[in-house]
């Protein structure tokens, strides 16, 4: 369970990233964060694994306040939170298997990992994860030989190999075309259901949010302006979140093609 209690975040340059956030995310939920760019979605999810640190309030994960974490506490926390990025962030010159095994780093000793001495079950887990996102035939290809959608699937496999309790995805489909976007979202949703991993995804496409989310949290200017199950959401809700009328480019489209 993730609990934001009166969370605020002010960046060193004075911009307020988050204002007075009170949100509780229960285990197993598939939450989609929506909002215009700059609304604070990224800051919100990056607070959860402390890539950024809120400056006020308390953030509880499994009943422990993580804001004071440093060093090994922080690494332990991050080991149970997987993260997927817009730019995939794979090591382009390393092969797919090595990239996926990197998901095990938090569980592997420094010495073992430096000399590539992964346990057999870790290598097996990595291969299994690649199979789950259907990219196991690219095992020994270099990451930069893959297309964007394939790279994002590898990064999902990396997160799976980590065996996390939570998955954070920061704009995972923003660099992909519509059919590939749907494919990636479908995998995320499937993993969420099958492994019961709490998943929080940042999106700015309204139709995709509606299609995949259990619950939608809308942000504007660092504040949560909507929080509710997807059944309560209408076009009007989005107009309130975005503070303007909905336009063509707020939609990803392509749902039927995939």
């Amino acid at each position, binding site marked *: 369970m993730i609990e934001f209690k009166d969370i605020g975040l002010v960046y060193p340059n004075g911009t307020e990233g988050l204002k007075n956030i009170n949100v509780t995310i229960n285990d197993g939920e598939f939450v989609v964060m929506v909002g215009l760019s700059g609304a604070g979605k990224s800051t919100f999810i990056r607070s959860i694994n402390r890539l950024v640190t809120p400056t006020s309030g308390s953030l509880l994960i499994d009943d422990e306040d993580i804001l004071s974490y440093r060093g090994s506490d922080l690494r332990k926390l991050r080991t149970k939170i997987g993260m997927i990025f817009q730019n995939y962030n794979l*090591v382009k010159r390393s092969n797919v298997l090595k990239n996926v095994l990197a998901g095990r780093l938090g569980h592997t000793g420094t010495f073992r990992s430096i000399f590539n001495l992964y346990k057999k079950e870790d290598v097996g887990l990595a291969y299994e994860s690649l199979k789950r996102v259907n990219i196991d035939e690219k095992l020994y290809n270099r990451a930069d030989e893959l297309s964007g959608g394939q790279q994002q699937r590898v990064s999902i496999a990396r997160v799976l190999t980590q065996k996390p309790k939570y998955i954070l995805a920061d704009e995972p489909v923003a660099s992909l075309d519509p059919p590939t976007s749907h494919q990636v979202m479908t995998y995320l949703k499937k993993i969420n259901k099958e492994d019961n991993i709490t998943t929080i995804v940042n999106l700015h496409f309204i139709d995709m949010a509606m299609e995949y989310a259990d619950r939608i949290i809308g942000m504007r200017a660092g504040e949560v302006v909507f929080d509710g199950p997807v059944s309560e959401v209408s076009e009007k809700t989005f107009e309130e979140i975005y503070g303007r009328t909905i336009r063509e480019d707020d939609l990803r489209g392509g749902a039927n093609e995939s």
Partner: protein
Amino acid sequence: MATYSLPPKKEQSSFKKFKKIFILLAVIALYVWTFLGIDIDWTRAVERAASNFHRVIPKLFSPDWAAAGEVSQKILETIFIAFAGSFMAAILAIPLGFLAAKNMSRGKLLSAIGKWILSAIRAFPDIILAILFVVAVGPNAFAGVLAIAIGSTGMLGKLYSEVVESIDMQVVEAMEANGANKVQALFYGVLPQIIPEFLSYAIYRFEIDIRASSILGIVGAGGIGTMIIFAANNRNWNEMGMILLAIIIVVTIIDFISARIRRKIV
């Protein structure tokens, strides 16, 4: 034919125009001043060249093949000096390169110190280092190796630090977000991004060091340079021809091989 309207002229303040003209004039003045300053006596230079030309040049083109044995032995020593020196530099430059890279430490202080050390090393020409090491360890090939090693460390460290600064730090962030510690992030996120460039620069530097080490013997630091200085002092231009031929062949071969290897790795 369609008539296109021309794009609007780039807006430029008169201050900028003035600045450009001023810089141009300053550069011209600098050149004029330099050439007047070094006081070249053209007529004398041409006279000497003309009188020596027929004595030296033809002999350079008829190399003394009897010296081939000694020359090849010395050129091999030159290659060894260059190799040992650039190998040492390739390793010594790694910690310095990381130290000088801005993105590898939090504060600016460490990187500034690293950059300062590297500039200080680069300030010494190879030949000065060779003289220092000949004094320190005696007139032998080891002095040459040390001179090459230190000289190359300055340049390689600088290039390494630039490679490290150009890596994709988001990949490193992704590793740390997975729970990897700093050492793991270094081995998994940083090293794969930098190793090919590091190797490529080290090989390139070896190429330069071959040329550099062929001159070090002039100050007694081993290699073919010793023969060059003797041949020149004895006016033995046939032997000099042989030496130059050997250097040209070796440098060409090494350049060719190095270019091919470097194309492969990056």
